[in-house]
């Protein structure tokens, strides 16, 4: 009787384990080095990750999603990687532009930012943004002019939200790519955005991509969360503080 425990089936067991795990398991070796195929796959995945960081979100996407484009104080990709502080701030001119071109004092300000993966924006925003907008509309929330920020860091939402006097702010931002996926997106949310708001006041949904939380489901989930934030006038730990206990 053939059984899974016979020596012939060790390959099948290893395959089963490898199939359930994104790590590079059971890839073998050539002497002390990886096999050519493994090395090429690794380099290819690394290349995809580098591309996600180095590439730009296309103007077509920004336009087709109806986003108002702005840029942080960062000048180029090298500057972006070297100066996180500049990725959190906008110029006075940009602030002035926001005040003339965008809806003022919205309940919800939606921001899309390239962050560390333009690929994440290209892949996820077309499915996420429409259902999010539907969801916010259905809940009767007043939504501002959606904005695209080039060279943005998470906390640029504090600056933009403060300038526009938004009640709450959402930023959809490309995550630092890994070797398993380069298209993971995160959604950070804050109630009452002000420059310098600590991270503890922010709520996040991460791992949004086809292999994680599907972007369309994430859109509906974010709409729900924002409605809750507006109702409770809180975000981050303030939203959940009452059912958590911390060791003193």
């Amino acid at each position, binding site marked *: 009787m053939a059984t899974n425990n016979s020596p012939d089936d060790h390959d099948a067991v290893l395959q089963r384990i490898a199939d359930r795990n994104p790590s590079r398991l059971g890839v073998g070796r050539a002497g002390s080095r990886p096999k050519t195929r493994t090395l090429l796959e690794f380099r290819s995945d690394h290349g995809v990750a580098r591309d996600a960081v180095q590439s730009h979100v296309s103007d077509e996407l920004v336009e087709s999603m109806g986003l108002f484009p702005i840029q942080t104080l960062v000048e180029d990709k090298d500057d972006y990687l070297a100066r996180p502080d500049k990725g959190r701030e906008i110029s006075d001119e940009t602030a002035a532009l926001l005040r003339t071109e965008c809806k003022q004092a919205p309940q919800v300000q939606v921001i899309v930012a390239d962050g560390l993966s333009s690929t994440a924006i290209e892949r996820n925003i077309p499915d*996420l943004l429409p259902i999010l907008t539907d969801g916010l509309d259905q809940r009767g929330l007043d939504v501002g002019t959606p904005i695209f920020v080039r060279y943005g860091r998470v906390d640029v939402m504090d600056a933009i939200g403060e300038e526009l006097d938004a009640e709450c702010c959402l930023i959809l931002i490309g995550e630092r790519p890994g070797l398993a996926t380069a298209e993971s997106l995160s959604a950070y949310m804050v109630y009452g955005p002000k420059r310098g708001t600590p991270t503890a006041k922010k709520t996040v949904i991460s791992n949004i991509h086809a292999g994680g939380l*599907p972007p369309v489901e994430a859109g*509906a989930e974010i709409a729900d969360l924002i409605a809750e934030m507006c109702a409770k006038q809180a975000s981050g730990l303030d939203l959940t503080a009452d059912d958590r206990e911390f060791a003193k």
Partner: protein
Amino acid sequence: MGANSTPTNASTTLTSVGIDVGTTTTHVVVSELAVDTAGGTGTEKLTISDRTVRFRGPVHETPLIDPETVDTDAVAELIATDLATAGVSPDAIDTGAVIVTGETARTVNAEPLVHTLADESGNFVVATAGAALEAILAGQGSGAAAHAVDSQVTVANVDVGGGTTNTAIFDADGVVETRCLDVGGRLVAVADGRLTKLAEPARLLSEAHGLGLSVGDPVDPEQLSALTTAMASLVVDSLLGPPYHQLTVELSIGSLPTEPQPLDCIVFTGGVGRLVGESRDATAQTEPFAYNDLGPLLAAALAEAAADAGLSVRRLAEELRATVIGAGTYTTQLSGRTVFIDADLLPLRNLPVIATGSLAEVDDGQLTAPLSRGLSQATRRYDLHDVGGVVIAVDDVGDLSYDRLRAVADAFAAVLGDSNLNEIPVVVVTQQNCAKALGQLLHARCADRPLIVIDELAVETGAYLDIGEPITHGETVPVVVKTLVFGS
């Protein structure tokens, strides 16, 4: 619809009851189920991470008024007494299941019995029945399913009770199939040295083997031994086939699989099954009729038949109470974490499931056809006003894009709008993680109808679904996928 904003590691504990009313015996167990996230980044499914049995009730003889009727009041009293001994009031019980098994499921009052017990035993205790479900629960309760995963092997859990033998085969990915037979220790009863009961399957076997048994005969251990040898060979035949012996096919419950399944080991559970590992020396020889039935003889015959067939028999910790522990700890699942729920509609009980199959290959414009077929199938099979709702299960909606989900929602809205079921709760179940998005899109199209969308669950036509009230801040709902098969 409020969701918790950030991932919490705050775990929740559910108190779960399992009640098994079988052909011969009735048991109660009380367990604690720990609900937890699998990881930590916020979107993982909540799962039942730990199951601890807190109370194992004594084994009661199932009280009968006559062979066709269970004494409902006496059963209810046994259960109430056991719960009192356990120190658990029905109000404190969050979930669980009542299962009627074996021949009891064929008694005239099995159906009202199981529903009544379920209603009286706790907040979200569900009614279940069916040999295949029992087989699976027994394998989960015994630890056979976990052994298959841990050791990456294929295991058959053979639950041999008073009226039926229910086999579930597990491998590392879960349930492979079930194989159930009308073979059990209480098909023949003896008292004062005479046969007092010869159930139909036993009569059939007696005839086929020329044993000529009939009620009232004096007990002839050799004849009864021959009968149990015949029973055991059918059980082994059902494990090894196809091909199957003609009698195996005649005594099978439901259909038998059409492909053989190589097995690494088998586990015997149930009142008779637990005797298999001990049978060679003890009871079968010294006191073959200690239980006034064929149990010890059948167990001895099974041990011999399994050995002759070269099947490797393994013993696990839970043999006697496998089914009831399975019912108490494995029936409740949790839906995906992002769901679309109208909590006012919950709990919903005993909703029939209609599965549409995969829609992945269906073009956007053609989606109404399979959905409307599913719904008319539901209205043909069930009076939906009577059953109080319907579950429409969609295995695969296709690409999880905004446009595709909109097309699916349009089709659902059109089909539901055309039906005269506006007041009937409809539960849409998907396997993909898209319940919140689909729920939002559907709500925009038919806001007035009672609607629930839950995801990351696999259910098939013919199954029934119970959905409990939301737990963990409304993030998830307890769900029981089950069968309700009464009669033969």
